[in-house]
């Protein structure tokens, strides 16, 4: 074989193998909720991440608890590398030893984050929202401006509440009576008085949106992101920045699985998702609050429920429950709520 022929062969081999080499990097697997959550994170975070680093990203989608259950049974050899979940469920991952400690030296973008984003050594906030009041102005009379308005008798049989996690309304009731999530018993009697106003309880985001959309529950304690989503669909919905007590903040977080063999790539992914540019796109897509304080928020979103752009706003417009108290109290809260509020 002469040199020219050998060179031709080598060129062919190189051309054939080159694209393969580019995608041959070991993919990282990201666990997240399905639907819009996965689609948005794939488009805004995963694809640019792969373009930048060459590391492909695969997804494992499912409900919060399905994914937690899977993580538990595959603890010895984790099937995923990065997990998105709510902050208090993140506590359960930690308590079960499913997360590893984050190496903050590998997450330089964390320096730009609001302090509220640091939920623990092992999980970090990626976006925020609030549980607040959403209502259909075309189906009810008057305006709702504060949490206490929910107790108005004119809303008899009109309110929808989440029953999968009653911590928000329990905490609000306690706050209105001078308590908080630790002294939640202070709000029990007030919450019992809300019972006649409840039309239905919901256990999924989809159901909460259905209830408001169909008018079965024209007033709801709702995730701000879902309220914005309904507005985008043309449903007449008003989201309230309550004047008496703040909305109850939820922070979705990322954690890196203990035992992953791709910890470096996972840290790169986490860092990438916290970057200013990516956070700006996530804010625009979800209409959620950025955890990166450097991220620019569109004018029409500034001041909206769940969107905080400065330490001052985080302090004044957000009420963040203690994650550990919330995780520990969830069972007794749920039991009390079912017995006293849900029961007919």
């Amino acid at each position, binding site marked *: 074989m002469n040199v020219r022929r050998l060179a031709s062969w080598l060129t062919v081999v190189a051309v054939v193998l080159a694209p393969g080499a580019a995608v041959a990097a070991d993919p990282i697997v990201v666990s997240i909720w399905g639907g819009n959550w996965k689609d948005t994170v794939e488009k805004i975070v995963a694809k640019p991440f792969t373009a930048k680093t060459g590391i492909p990203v695969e997804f494992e989608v499912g409900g919060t608890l399905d994914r937690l259950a899977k993580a538990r049974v595959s603890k010895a050899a984790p099937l995923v590398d990065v997990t998105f979940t709510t902050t208090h469920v993140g506590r*359960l991952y930690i308590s079960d030893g499913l997360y590893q400690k984050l190496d903050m030296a590998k997450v330089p973008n964390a320096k730009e984050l609001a302090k509220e984003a640091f939920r623990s050594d092992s999980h970090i906030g990626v976006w925020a929202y609030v549980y607040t009041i959403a209502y259909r102005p075309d189906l009810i009379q008057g305006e709702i401006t504060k949490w206490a308005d929910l107790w108005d008798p004119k809303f008899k049989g009109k309110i929808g509440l989440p029953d*999968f996690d009653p911590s928000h309304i329990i905490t609000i009731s306690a706050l209105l009576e001078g308590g908080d999530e630790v002294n939640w018993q202070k709000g029990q009697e007030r919450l019992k008085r809300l019972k006649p106003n409840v039309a*239905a309880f919901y256990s999924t985001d989809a159901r909460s949106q259905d209830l408001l959309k169909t008018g079965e529950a024209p007033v709801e304690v709702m995730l701000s992101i879902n309220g914005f989503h309904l507005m985008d669909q043309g449903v007449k919905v008003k989201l309230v920045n309550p004047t008496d007590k703040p909305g109850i903040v939820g922070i979705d977080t990322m954690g890196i699985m203990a035992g992953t063999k791709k910890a470096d790539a996972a840290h790169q992914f986490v860092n990438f998702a916290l970057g200013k540019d990516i956070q700006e796109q996530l804010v625009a897509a979800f209409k959620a609050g950025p955890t990166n304080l450097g991220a620019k928020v569109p004018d029409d979103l500034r001041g909206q429920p769940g969107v905080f752009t400065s330490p001052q706003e985080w302090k004044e417009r957000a009420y963040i429950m203690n994650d550990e108290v919330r995780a520990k109290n*969830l069972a007794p809260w749920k039991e009390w709520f079912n017995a006293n509020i849900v029961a007919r």
Partner: protein
Amino acid sequence: MFGVALTALLQQSLLEFVPGSLRTGGLTDANFRAVLAPQYLRYIWETILLSVATTVLTLVAAYPVAYALARARSARVRSLLLVLTLAPFFTGAIVRTYAWMLVLGNSFVRWPVKLLFEPSGVLIGLVHFSMPTMILILAAAISHIDPRYERAAASLGARPARVFWRVTLPLSMPGVASGCLVVLAWTFSAFPTPELLGGGRVKMVANVVKDLALDSFNWPGSAAFAAVALAVTLAVLAVMSRGLARLER
């Protein structure tokens, strides 16, 4: 496999629940004491009531259709009935239940009484869900009855109603028994219908198991409740099957 799953369930039910953690503690009977409280027993009682009501109403509604399916002279009518009976099987339980939400809610119809998120609405959904199976089981049983028995009774002067009560119904009792047991058993474990049509206000056993496991993260409590519910289900089925066997005789 069932034995392994049952053993795992019982094992989990005897472990201590640690709030705020997925780890479990040592052996305890606290989970059973907790789920045997009136708050939880009420859900089991309501599930029994809904299941029995569903079974009875489904039987009453399905019998005439099954009779027509088995006895219609026209092959075209039989085919039409069969297609109408089988049609719901081609849509999933979730789709059917969402359709009922639209029907029972206020979107299209103004009902004089509230149906959605009430036991009555759940009952309607459960009956509709159970109808096709009951119809097929009853139709199979009725088609095995020799029509000459009915004709003989009629020729001896029995009116149609008497023929039905004294001949057709007794001879179809094996089908009635099978249909009732099947409908009762699966209604007892119904999940999507009460979950969606109950709006959180009407909960059956499976909804409470899910609440405890997936919302409260109380897996030992959920396992204990599931074990108690399983025992109650078996007891109810045993009582019912004994009663139906007596009727068959």
